[in-house]
């Protein structure tokens, strides 16, 4: 380039002054138009962003000075950094303009330094940090909160099995607060649980006139014939047959059976008002109830649902891929440059097809699903529809690129042997198309199954629907089952699709 010493450029102090008035102006007038514009627009953007964040931080204050003070007091670290960088960018732009002008006096096309862009970039990141509300302290402090649900999600297996339960109980009568015949010891029946209570008469706990509790008689409940090592709950039935579960020091009465299925439990008789109208002997019944697991363990409802829905999910992905292939193959021919650049009309068709495909592809399947739900209602069909639309666009583009990459030499060679059009397609075109088609299709199937695991979150059927429900119900174990199944399915699919693709490429 020209290196005339006498080239007329802005004197360095003037360039510096211009950049003092507005950053980038000096560079602009020195001839570094792009650099100057970049600095100016960056500076403007940064100023606007900075002011926006200040007004967000101090949204109640009115004057800018008040706002600044408030913002400074709320986030001093951020504000100091931003102001510092603001000043640094400004000063650097002055220095840079001066330096550049000085250099350009000697060489018209001299390049300045780019330190200012590092500063601008840093400034953007600092503001970005604040806009994104990044809070590392919170992240570390609140981490322990996530451990319980995380553990449940990671180890959900106790929610995967279910046993039917049956309640067994045994009863023993006791005479309370009255005179009368002491009830007999209950009869023992073979194969059934049994309890007896001693003594078989006593006084209930009651409240005296000062409101203090006067403890009742202590009784011992002996039980046998229960399931071993399982909880037995003690219930108390009053004279009219109302059952209640007494509490001792705040916890419900009850105990665990030993290895033989027996227990011995000592408690004071509970507080219960005996109605004044009651006369004659008052018999209460002590009851030992137990919930026993019955039959073999069965898969729980969440497990069954998860399995059903993961199957639905895989098939959603498959169906969407199938429909996608069917529609995208003809479309891909319209989007292949080498086929469509013959006439003007086909060229126009090519650009229209490409544009539509690009627009469809730019909209995520989740958004398509929202539209599809309005269209065909909730359920897997909506999900399939959404995935199909996106698949057509994605595969259409990939297929058309495969068509564009066909080697004309191979076609030429087969034609030269005297092959007919059909033979040329079979022997030269299809062998070239199959590998990329298979590869892209499998890749897309992979994506579709992965997508269909989340598409349920917006009502598109599949496992996502279930997963979101469990998470919203805070049923982390059931959610964990779904998460595990998704992870297993997707990794198997990843592996399988990679294997198949390797075979074909």
């Amino acid at each position, binding site marked *: 380039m020209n290196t005339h010493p006498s080239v007329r450029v802005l004197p360095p102090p003037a360039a510096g002054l211009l950049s003092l008035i507005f950053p980038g102006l000096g560079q602009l007038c020195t001839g570094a138009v792009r650099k100057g514009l970049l600095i100016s627009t960056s500076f403007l953007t940064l100023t606007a962003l900075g002011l926006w964040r200040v007004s967000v931080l101090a949204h109640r204050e009115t004057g800018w000075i008040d706002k600044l003070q408030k913002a400074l007091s709320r986030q001093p670290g951020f504000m100091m950094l931003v102001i510092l960088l603001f000043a640094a960018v400004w000063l650097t732009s002055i220095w840079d303009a001066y330096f550049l002008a000085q250099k350009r006096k000697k060489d018209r096309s001299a390049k300045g330094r780019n330190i200012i862009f590092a500063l601008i970039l840093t400034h953007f990141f600092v503001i970005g940090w604040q806009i994104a509300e990044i809070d590392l302290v919170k992240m570390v402090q609140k981490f322990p909160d996530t451990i319980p649900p995380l553990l449940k999600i990671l180890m959900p297996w106790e929610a995967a099995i279910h046993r039917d339960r049956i309640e067994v109980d045994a009863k023993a009568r006791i005479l309370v607060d009255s005179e009368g015949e002491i009830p007999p010891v209950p009869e023992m029946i073979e194969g059934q649980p049994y309890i007896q209570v001693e003594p078989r008469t006593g006084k209930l706990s009651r409240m005296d006139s000062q409101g203090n509790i006067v403890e009742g008689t202590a009784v011992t409940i002996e039980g046998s014939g229960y399931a071993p090592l399982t909880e037995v709950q003690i219930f108390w039935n009053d004279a009219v047959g109302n059952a209640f579960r007494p509490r001792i020091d705040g916890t419900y009465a009850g105990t665990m059976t030993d290895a033989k299925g027996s227990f011995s439990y000592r408690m004071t008789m509970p507080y219960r008002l005996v109605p004044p109208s009651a006369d004659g002997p008052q018999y209460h019944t002590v009851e030992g109830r137990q919930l026993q697991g019955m039959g073999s363990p069965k898969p729980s409802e969440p497990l069954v649902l998860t399995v059903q829905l993961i199957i639905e999910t895989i098939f959603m992905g498959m169906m969407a891929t199938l429909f996608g292939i069917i529609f995208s193959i003809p479309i891909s021919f319209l989007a292949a440059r080498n086929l469509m650049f013959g006439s003007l009309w086909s060229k126009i068709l090519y650009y229209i097809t490409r544009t539509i495909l690009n627009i469809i592809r730019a909209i995520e399947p989740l958004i398509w699903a929202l539209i599809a739900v309005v269209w065909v209602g909730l359920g897997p069909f909506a999900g399939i529809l959404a995935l199909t639309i996106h698949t057509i666009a994605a595969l259409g583009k990939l297929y058309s690129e495969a068509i564009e990459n066909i*080697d004309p*030499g*191979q076609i*030429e*060679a*087969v*034609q*030269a*042997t*005297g*092959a*007919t059009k*059909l*033979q040329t397609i*079979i*022997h*030269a075109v299809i*062998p*070239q198309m*199959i*590998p990329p088609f298979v590869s892209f299709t499998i890749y897309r199937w992979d994506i579709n199954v992965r997508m269909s695991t989340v598409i349920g979150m917006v009502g598109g059927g599949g496992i996502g629907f279930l997963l979101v429900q469990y998470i919203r119900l805070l049923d982390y174990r059931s959610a964990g089952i779904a998460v595990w199944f998704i992870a297993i399915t997707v990794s198997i699919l990843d592996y399988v699709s990679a294997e198949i693709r390797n075979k074909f490429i």
Partner: protein
Amino acid sequence: MLEVKNLTKIYSDGTVALKNVSFTVQDGEFLVVIGLSGSGKSTLLRCINRLIDPTEGDILWNGVNTTTAGTKELRVIRRKIGMVFQHFNLVKRSSVMTNVLCGRLGYVSPAATLIGRFSRQDTERAYRAMDMVGIRDQAKKRADELSGGQQQRVGIARALMQEPEMILADEPVASLDPVLAHTILGYIEKINQQTGVTVLCSLHYLDLVQRYATRVIGLKAGEIVYEGTKNDILNMTDTQFKEIYGEEAQRVGTGSITGGTQL
């Protein structure tokens, strides 16, 4: 006998590739076409089997005008003309065997190819063709697993499958090293001498031309600027040479030709 009469090819973008080219090739000749890249060599060879449709002129092969041949006639013409390419043009993802069998496509009915079967005779013929160029043990491999030299042998075997009366070789050794170049041209020469197949071959290196050609034509900007016998080539002068390859041409080493931007 091949007669090319006043052949002209103008591409749709206006490029004139061939200008009024006329020459005759006797059966059994090894005719070498020389010339710079873009001089029209490839276009000329492709016009003969109508991979490219000529704009004007006639090509008579054994008395049949190929330029006016219909689809069926063209098929019969093409299957008797084998073609070997600079970049081999094998169907890369198919096996060597399938590639060689492709040479038979001009003979089998399209319906049979739909099922993808070739007859036993064709398979045996393919093995014989592979034997001829020494690649029988590669039959099961995928074409793109082979080295360049081996791929070109597959190309020759494919041409042999056509039981050709003429072979068009479009710079068959330009992608290969000099030693391989002699091997490949050796096979073509062997076919030419043993079975009397006419060969039309475009080449770049003068030493190869001198070694293999029985006759030479030189193309420059789509026109024939040189025609000579084997003896003429052996005694070729720098002036004639420059006429074909331009002012910047010069002999390299033992007689290779470079043409300015070429090679």
